[in-house]
């Protein structure tokens, strides 16, 4: 637990300062607090462990200074500072490109829950090896630990760490025009019992059932394939 807290703090610092704008803002805030150290009733270096708190402390002291000089304008000044921090320390979190409304309490698309429920009910094995599409494979293990995925990564940053077969399948399924023979071969070699594909994602459409898989279930959006001749 302690080890996790320490690594958590270090990693959160690393992740936080991945956005270099916030690093610059934190350094400016620290410099500002150091310059006005005579006025402070606390040691500014104590706040290094909480970078966002450091920004807040700098904000409080800037506003206090502004209030001393021009009392009535402090709120306007504070709004300006808020806008400055908000626009200069990162990008807008909620944009239409990246955010969508949750369809259910699981925060998983409802039709995909149907697919996962079908596989879970169909198969009684303790672990079910599945090949799913890159944007959706992350949902399986979040839903049930019985799923064993060929690849779990959904954003593709760590593709280089995948095995050769998994990397081939990932690359093909990330493309709009995948070679289903490579996908099928990768699935067979890696012993994937099921393959889940979206109906309208690929063009031109070469169904996977030409190779070693057959369709066992369809929903309006999804096709579930199982290995041919596999006893479920």
């Amino acid at each position, binding site marked *: *637990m302690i080890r996790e807290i320490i690594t958590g703090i270090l990693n959160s610092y690393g992740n936080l300062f991945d956005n270099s704008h916030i690093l610059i803002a934190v350094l400016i805030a620290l410099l500002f607090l150091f310059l006005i150290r005579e006025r402070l009733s606390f040691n500014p270096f104590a706040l290094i462990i909480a970078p966002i708190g450091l920004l807040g402390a700098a904000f409080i002291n800037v506003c206090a200074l502004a209030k001393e000089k021009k009392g009535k304008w402090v709120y306007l000044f504070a709004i300006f500072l*808020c806008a400055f921090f908000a626009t200069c320390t990162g990008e807008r979190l909620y944009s239409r490109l990246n955010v969508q409304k949750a369809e259910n309490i699981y925060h998983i698309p409802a039709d995909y829950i149907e697919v996962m429920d079908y596989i879970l009910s169909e198969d009684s094995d303790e672990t079910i090896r599945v090949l799913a599409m890159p944007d959706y494979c992350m949902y399986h293990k979040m839903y049930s630990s019985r799923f064993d995925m060929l690849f779990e990564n959904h954003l593709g940053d760590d593709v280089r760490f995948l095995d050769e077969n998994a990397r081939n399948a990932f690359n093909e399924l990330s493309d709009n025009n995948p070679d289903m023979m490579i996908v099928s071969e990768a699935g067979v070699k890696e012993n994937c019992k099921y393959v889940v594909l979206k109906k309208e994602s690929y063009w031109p459409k070469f169904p996977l059932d030409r190779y070693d898989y057959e369709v066992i279930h369809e929903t309006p959006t999804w096709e579930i394939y199982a290995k041919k001749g596999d006893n479920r």
Partner: protein
Amino acid sequence: MKKITIPLLNIVLIILIALQVYAAYSLIDTRSYAYDGIKYAVRVYEGGSFNINAMVMSIIGIICRLISMHPLVFVNTIALVMIPLSYLAYNYLFNKISTEDSKDIKALALIMLCIINYYGYYSGNLSGCCLLTGYFTGYSICLNVIAPIGAGILAARLKPLRDKEIDESLKQIKKIDNYEESNEDLEEWDMKKHPIVNARNLAIALGIVVVIMLASVFVLNSKINSLYDATVNLQNQLNEYTNGDN
């Protein structure tokens, strides 16, 4: 004026926090890495083993098992309490570092944090520690709850940096004219005569430099190793291609 503004600012603050809770409840960020860790909670929830590197998620899994609630449902409902809790932690920090007169400014600072959480400090890798997308992750709890409370405690304990106090202590030390007259141990005399650049502080500085050098060597070494792994695969692939051409 002050009687009106402080409650008004507090109402704005509460509305902004409530909006954040609502946004975390009802919206999905499709870029989010934050949900990746939930698989560890699901494994514990379904009777599997702990992951020692994801203890927060394992604890969530135990709680979910006790109350018979799927971890995803727990995270999207009960764990939302972490968002107001984070603002309470920041409020604690701001109470420690500011005076009673500045209640309106403290409320403004919390509003600024709210706005930063909505619009600022976000990049692709930040979803694990950004309050809005990763409020239930260990990273976010460390950064937004443990760190502000720790900073508040430290700020209350550490002495403030004031040059006047340092000057007074320096004057007292200067009263000692030289080492022979002071009749003290050499190390103590050195530390009193040279409060900043003395043998002890230099030894500490040297130690810090050595640690930083070791850390940088370790980091560089790990980077070189990962590069080497990447080039090994590359070489194999190139060999395969060239063999195929021949």
